[in-house]
C-alpha cells in the first residue's frame, strides 16, 4: 500500500520514509514526528494536556478540536522540523533498508473505567446497550516481516484509577476521559478512539445501579470500519440471578450492524474462553 491510499483512509498502516525524511502525525492531542536517517530512526512526540475531559458539554461547537468531523480528524505531513523540539525524544539504531514504518493502533493494556453521564438504575430483568469510547496507543514498528517494534505511545494520557471493593482488593485501571453513552449518536466519534458496545443484562431480582463500568480492554481486539472509525467486539455483561457473580462474554467478531470491518490488531491477552465469570463488584460499581 502506498502513502497516498493511507492519506485517504486511515492514520495507521505502513508508510515509506526516505533517508533524512520526516513525517509528522497530528492525531487528537498527540503530535508525533518520525525521522529516518541512515541506520537510525528518531521518534519524538508530545501530548497536549487538557485536550478533553469529562466535563466537556455534550454539544460543544463543531469547530472546536473536540468535535472534528471524522473525515479529517488527523493529518500526516512531511515536515522539515527536527524532532528535538518536542518533549519526548528517542533514537533507535537499526540497519533497515526498507524504510517501512508500520503504525498499529492498540487498546490499553489495563482495563478502562468509564462512567455514565449520570448514574442510572437498571430494573430487574432489563437489558441495555452502552457505548464506551476508549483511548488508543500507537505501536511503531520498522521494516517488513518480521518488523521490529520501536515503542508504544499513548495518544492521550489517561489518569490512573483503582477499581475494586476496597484498597486491598482490586486492580489498577485507566479512567476514561469520556462518559459512556446510551445512544451511539451522543458518543463523540474520534479517529483516535475505539468504540465498544457493552450489553448489560440484569437477570437478578433487584435493581442494578450503574455508576462505573469496568471495560476489559486487554481482552479486546480492534477492528476498523470503512469510514476509519475503530471498533471492538461487543462485550456482554450479565448479572446472574444470585446477584454476586457477573458473566462476561466477548464476541469473537466485530459488531454486525456497523458494516464491513477489517481486523487491525489482536487483543493483549487472549481470554481462555469467550465466557468469563467474575465477582460482581469487579465489573460494576
Amino acid at each position, binding site marked *: 500500500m502506498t502513502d497516498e491510499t493511507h492519506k485517504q483512509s486511515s492514520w495507521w498502516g505502513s508508510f515509506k520514509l526516505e533517508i533524512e525524511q520526516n513525517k509528522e502525525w497530528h492525531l487528537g492531542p498527540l503530535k508525533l514526528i518520525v525521522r529516518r536517517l541512515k541506520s537510525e530512526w528518531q521518534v519524538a512526540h508530545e501530548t497536549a494536556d487538557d485536550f478533553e475531559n469529562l466535563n466537556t458539554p455534550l454539544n460543544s461547537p463543531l469547530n472546536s478540536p473536540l468535535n472534528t468531523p471524522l473525515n479529517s480528524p488527523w493529518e500526516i505531513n512531511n515536515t522539515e522540523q527536527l524532532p528535538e523540539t518536542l518533549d519526548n525524544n528517542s533514537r533507535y539504531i537499526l540497519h533497515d533498508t526498507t524504510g517501512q514504518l508500520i503504525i498499529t493502533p492498540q487498546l490499553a493494556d489495563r482495563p478502562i*473505567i468509564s462512567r455514565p453521564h449520570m448514574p442510572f438504575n437498571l430494573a430487574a430483568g432489563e437489558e441495555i446497550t452502552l457505548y464506551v469510547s476508549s483511548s488508543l496507543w500507537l505501536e511503531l514498528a520498522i521494516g517488513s516481516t518480521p518488523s521490529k517494534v520501536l515503542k508504544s505511545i499513548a495518544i492521550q*494520557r*489517561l*489518569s*490512573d*484509577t*483503582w*477499581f475494586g471493593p476496597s484498597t*486491598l482488593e482490586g486492580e*489498577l485501571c485507566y479512567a476514561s476521559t469520556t462518559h459512556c453513552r446510551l445512544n451511539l449518536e451522543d458518543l463523540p466519534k474520534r479517529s483516535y478512539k475505539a468504540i465498544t458496545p457493552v450489553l448489560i443484562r440484569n437477570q437478578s431480582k433487584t435493581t442494578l445501579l450503574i455508576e462505573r463500568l469496568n471495560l476489559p480492554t486487554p481482552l479486546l481486539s480492534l477492528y476498523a470500519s470503512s469510514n476509519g472509525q475503530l471498533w471492538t467486539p461487543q462485550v456482554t455483561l450479565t448479572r446472574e440471578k444470585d446477584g454476586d457473580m457477573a458473566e462476561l462474554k466477548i464476541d469473537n467478531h466485530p459488531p454486525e450492524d456497523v458494516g464491513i470491518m477489517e481486523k487491525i490488531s489482536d487483543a493483549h491477552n487472549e481470554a481462555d474462553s469467550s465466557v468469563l465469570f467474575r465477582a460482581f463488584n469487579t465489573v460494576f460499581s
Partner: protein
Amino acid sequence: MNEFWSDIVNFLSSEKVWGLTRAIILIVIGIVIAKLVSTTLEKLSSNKMDNHRVMLLKRGSYYLVLILFLISALNELGFNLSVLLGAAGVFTVAIGFASQTSASNLISGLFLVAERPFTVGDVIRVGTTTGEVLSIDLLSVKLRTFDNLFVRIPNESLIKSEVTTLSRFPIRRLDVLVGVAYKEDLKKVRAVLDEVANKNPLCLEEPKPLYIFQGFGESSLDIQYSVWAKREKFIELKNSIHEEIKNAFDEQGIEIPFPHRTLYTGNDTKPFPVETIKNKQSD
C-alpha cells in the same frame, strides 16, 4: 615378610575395613541422592513458591537426606548412636549458652520465614531505615537503602520491632498538609484542590481524594488533602502535586500564610504609637 602380607590381607578382609567401605559408599550415595532430591524439589516448586522459599526447601531437603545417610554411615562404623546423640545433646546445650544471641536470631529467622511479613525485593522500613530487602537469612535480613548503603538487621530486632512493608499493596495514599489564610473561602480552596487532583494523571480518580479540615491553626486554617497514587508513582505524585497546588493557589490568589504575630494595642484603628527620644543622655 609373608607374615606382613598375611597381616595386611587379614586386616583388609576384616569386618572393620568392610564397615568403613560401606560407610564411605553410604556417604557418597547420600550426597548423590540429597543433590537429586533437592534439585527435583527445586524444579517442582519453582513456579509455585517464591525464590526464598524454594531456596529454603532446597537447602533443607539436601541437609536432611545427607544427615540421614551420615547417621547410617556412623552406624556402619560401629558407633553407638544413642551415646553419640546424648553427647550431642550436652554439646548443644553448651553451645546454646555460649551463642545465645545467634540462637535467638536463628529462631527469630525461622519465625520470620514462617510469618512472611515481606519477601526478597520488598521495600521495608525498620525504625529509621528504609530499603529494599536483598536477602532473608537465618541470622539477619540484608537491606539496600535508597542511598545505596548495605544494612544488616538482626532477625531478633525485626521480630521485636515494628516493620512497615511499603510495597505490599499496589496503591498508596499521600497526605498533603496545607494551610490557607483565615480570609480565604474554604469552599473555593476545596474546589481548587479537587481541580488540581483531577488534572494530575498520576492521582487516582478512585479512591476519591480525601479532604479533612484539621482545625484553626495559629496562623492558618489547616487542611489535610489526601490523594491516592500507584505505588511506583508515589514520589512523582508527591513532587508534582505540591507544585501544582502552589501554582493553583497563586493563580487563584489563595494565600498560604507563614507564621506571623500581630501586635494589638487595644485600639482597632490607631497605629501602634512609636516615639523617638532625642538627646536622652542630656536629660
